[in-house]
């Protein structure tokens, strides 16, 4: 168990070393640095597509990180920066998709399914309740 734990710790350390190598940039202001880290982790690297721009070593990801830093320094809010990216690269660049008419069904489907399932469950319960008096009416045991 402790072996496994130390192995995991080593892997974790190696992993974060690699991430640090991808993006060595640090912003002077710790508050901005925190927002910078959060934002770059939720913007998609358009060239690699399954990595965020924080994790990707390709040139375009580095350019986009630079834009994020500059927009932060200009005092832009997180939403404004996400909007800035969406204006250029479309909603695809956002790992956290926003509600829009195009993807409304995706957002609403879980609710619809839950409602449908609840309705079916409720009907089954009602039917069982209707059966109950009949069941309790026949307690005769042949033994």
């Amino acid at each position, binding site marked *: 168990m402790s072996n496994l734990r130390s192995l995991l710790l080593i892997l974790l350390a190696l992993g974060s070393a690699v991430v640090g190598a991808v993006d060595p940039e640090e912003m002077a202001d710790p508050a901005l640095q925190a927002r910078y880290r959060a934002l770059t982790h939720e913007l998609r690297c358009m060239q690699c597509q399954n990595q965020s721009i924080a994790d990707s070593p390709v*040139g375009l990801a580095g*350019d986009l990180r630079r834009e994020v830093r500059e927009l932060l320094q200009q005092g832009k809010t997180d939403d404004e920066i996400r909007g800035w990216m*969406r204006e*250029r690269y*479309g909603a695809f660049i956002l790992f956290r998709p926003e509600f829009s008419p195009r993807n409304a069904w995706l957002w609403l489907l879980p609710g619809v399914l839950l409602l449908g399932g609840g309705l079916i469950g409720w009907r089954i319960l009602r039917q069982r309740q209707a059966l109950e008096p009949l069941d309790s009416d026949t307690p005769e045991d042949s033994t």
Partner: protein
Amino acid sequence: MNRFLLPLGLFAALVLVLAIGVRRAPEKSVIQSVLLGKSAPDFVAPVLGSPDGARFEANSLRGRWYLLNVWGTWCAECRNEHATLLQIKATGKAPIVGLDWKDQPQDALSWLRQLGNPYEIVAEDRDGRIAINYGVYGAPETFLVDPQGIIAYKHVGAMTDEIWAQKFLARIEPTGARPSP
């Protein structure tokens, strides 16, 4: 029999949805530009190969159709499309503006000397800022801009004769048939 009807119907609906998804997969693999139908972003950039540091203004091109081709000497596919670009230049239908993306000017100049120059003018985007404003995520990419400065079409990947004829020329010179989207 009746109790199979609903699951069967649901299954058929699922098959239909998935079939549509599979049929549309090729066009979905290319990320549609959000800039289609919008104004081509203005930019001012240094002109490749001009020793006096002349600067190029994108909005000086209003009033005619033109192509904006994003390329770089580090881009292999750009070499593959180069012959087609030269052919397009020869037709004289629309000038091609080059955007040399994250490149060294001397590399770009020797590339054009070796392979021929299909461009009316080449703007330098040394730090990649112009490309970001155009939503470029790879090279080559070619934009078609109409006389009002609106982006009419964008092709991602190497330009080919077919793409030029069906997607670009069909928009510049409509012959009644609607260009394929």
